[in-house]
């Protein structure tokens, strides 16, 4: 084989400017275009479906709200029909969409570093002049922004889709299933899961286990946030009014008597039997059942007070910013930890 002769090597550049950042743009796109295209197709398909069904929802809702006079029986039936027709499907969609941040974070975020470590190509790319810390940043930051922006745009559509359900007072905007689909939190959850994935990939160094770990971490964090954290973002309001706003997110209900705690939730049956026995007791299966309101009134007449703690719907945006804020801070921390590992972690030879 005739070896090629090499032209003389240029003199070493004393200024030694780093390789420009923009040169990573092609690399990041080339290596992750399939994942990004997948995200676009996935969200695009959902968006098309939500847009088409959302038009029906908005049409039906407009008809229901245009009903006049609003207090009439016919109008009440229309509003009720609207919820019957579309409410269940909207809730099912909301439940399904909870996995979107998990899927995107896991399948885009986890492989970024795990694949390089698993296949060994990090030994190649980390020893090029661009430098491995800058390489990591130039991959993670644009990808994180891309997936968060895509999901952010998608959640605008969701806000539109769920607008009628939130506005008609049957569902609170703070309810766990819809709260994190709207506003800034959907994008923030995607960002945080992406960052979890990147760190898991760097730590575990294998693609599939890193994806699994990311999904598990998201599930745990999302459940913890929905069940325990979110209700404490701001101190709940407490009222003794019997009818807190219909759009409020009810935390708990309890009763007091004479300033002392009596019981939580609904009045226990033994108490009711004693102080508010249903009339017509013992008259068989067709006995008269008092409406719950009547029981409540009866219990109150006996000196009990009902207390309700709740988060008013007006706190939707403060809660959005609080949740978006801590997720953003968490993401920054996770990316910093990833960079630290890239810098420090001794790679097995």
């Amino acid at each position, binding site marked *: *084989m*005739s*070896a*090629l*002769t*090499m*032209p*003389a*090597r*240029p003199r*070493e*550049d004393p200024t*030694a400017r*780093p*390789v420009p950042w923009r*040169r*990573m743009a*092609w*690399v990041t796109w*080339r*290596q992750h275009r399939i994942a990004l295209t997948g995200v676009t197709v996935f969200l695009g398909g959902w968006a098309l479906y939500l847009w088409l069904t959302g038009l029906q929802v908005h049409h039906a809702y407009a008809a229901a709200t245009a009903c006049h006079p609003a207090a009439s029986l016919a109008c009440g039936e229309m509003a009720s029909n609207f919820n019957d027709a579309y409410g269940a499907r909207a809730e099912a969609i909301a439940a399904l969409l909870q996995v979107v941040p998990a899927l995107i974070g896991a399948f885009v975020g986890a492989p970024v570093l795990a694949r390089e470590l698993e*296949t*060994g*190509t*990090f*030994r*190649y*790319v*980390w*020893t*090029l*002049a*661009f*430098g491995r810390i800058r*390489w990591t940043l130039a991959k993670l930051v644009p990808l994180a922004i891309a997936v968060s922006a895509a999901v952010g745009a998608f959640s605008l559509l969701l806000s539109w889709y769920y607008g009628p359900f939130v506005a008609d007072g049957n569902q609170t905007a703070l309810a766990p299933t819809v709260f994190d689909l709207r506003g800034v939190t959907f994008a923030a959850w995607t960002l945080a899961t992406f960052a979890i994935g990147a760190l898991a990939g760097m730590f575990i160094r294998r693609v599939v286990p890193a994806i699994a770990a990311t999904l598990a971490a998201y599930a745990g964090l999302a459940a913890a946030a929905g069940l325990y954290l979110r209700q404490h973002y701001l101190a709940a309001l407490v009222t003794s009014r019997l009818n807190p706003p219909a759009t409020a997110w009810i935390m708990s209900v309890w009763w007091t008597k004479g300033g002392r705690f009596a019981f939580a939730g609904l009045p226990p049956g033994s108490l009711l039997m004693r102080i508010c026995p249903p009339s017509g007791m013992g008259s068989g299966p067709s006995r008269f059942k008092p409406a719950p309101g009547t029981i409540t009134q009866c219990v109150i007449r006996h000196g009990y007070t009902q207390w309700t703690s709740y988060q008013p719907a007006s706190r939707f945006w403060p809660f959005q910013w609080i949740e978006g804020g801590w997720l953003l801070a968490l993401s920054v921390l996770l990316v910093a930890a990833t960079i630290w590992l890239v810098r*420090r972690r*001794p*790679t*097995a*030879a």
Partner: protein
Amino acid sequence: MNQHSRRTNIVEARGLGKRYGRTWALRECTLAVPAGRVAALVGPNGAGKTTLLNLAVALLAPSAGEITVLGGRPPGSPPALDGIAFVAQDTPVYKNLSAADMLHLTRNLSRRFDQAYAERRLAELGIPLKRKGGQLSGGQQAQLALTLALARRPRLLLLDEPVAMLDPVARHDFMTTVITAAADDGMSVLLSSHVLTELERVADYLILLARGQVQVAGEVDDLLASHRILTGPAAGAERYAERPVVHSARDGTLSRLLVRAGAGDAVPPGWQAHPVGLEELALAYLRAPGGREPGPSDAETTEATI
């Protein structure tokens, strides 16, 4: 080769050690490889060769001691990344990127890249630019990785077991490319290998590594000139004490000793002296349990004789 590169140590280690858990993969490693050489890092599997190379490109951090490259630069520093091309063992290319994409990626992430050279060489090797890395044969992948490394015009080329996966013809072609490139522009080469054949043709500097420690290091010519094979009666082997014995072996009724002795040293009566080949010298040191040459001074005196 210019005067500057003559004086520089392209890789220099002092008391370098790397520990995984409680096991030392590399220990008390002190060496100074002068610039402009094709240096071979030879040792059995698990001797610490890969560890040493990974330390030289900052893919590992030392547990003890220190290592510098390109004349005192810390590994992983911008000039070191710029001036060193590293071809790792077994995993040289992205399987899902085409050869053209590999050129593009490397060109984008390097401070200089000789695209024309790379394309000419791939054409000469018959590697289609559109072919994905995973569809190339092992030999082609190794050649592609070498092409990418050379097109970066490095001052130091580090090759980890470059020919282990190659058949003899591909191995010969690969090493020809390396030594031609080294001769053309004075690029230094440090390559690790557990394959001893062809070493004599390729290497002019030898580092023998075994059990995580440097057994011997020096210019090939000096090493060959300072060692002799003595053959004589098997019974006399125990009594031979004139010069340090690196390794002794019995061959029927004859003893075969590798001794540290020059051509001018006297040969005891009844013994015959022969020059030693590089392969035999390397094998002898690798087999000798305590055959380690006395320490760091070796590398430094070698340097002083340049």
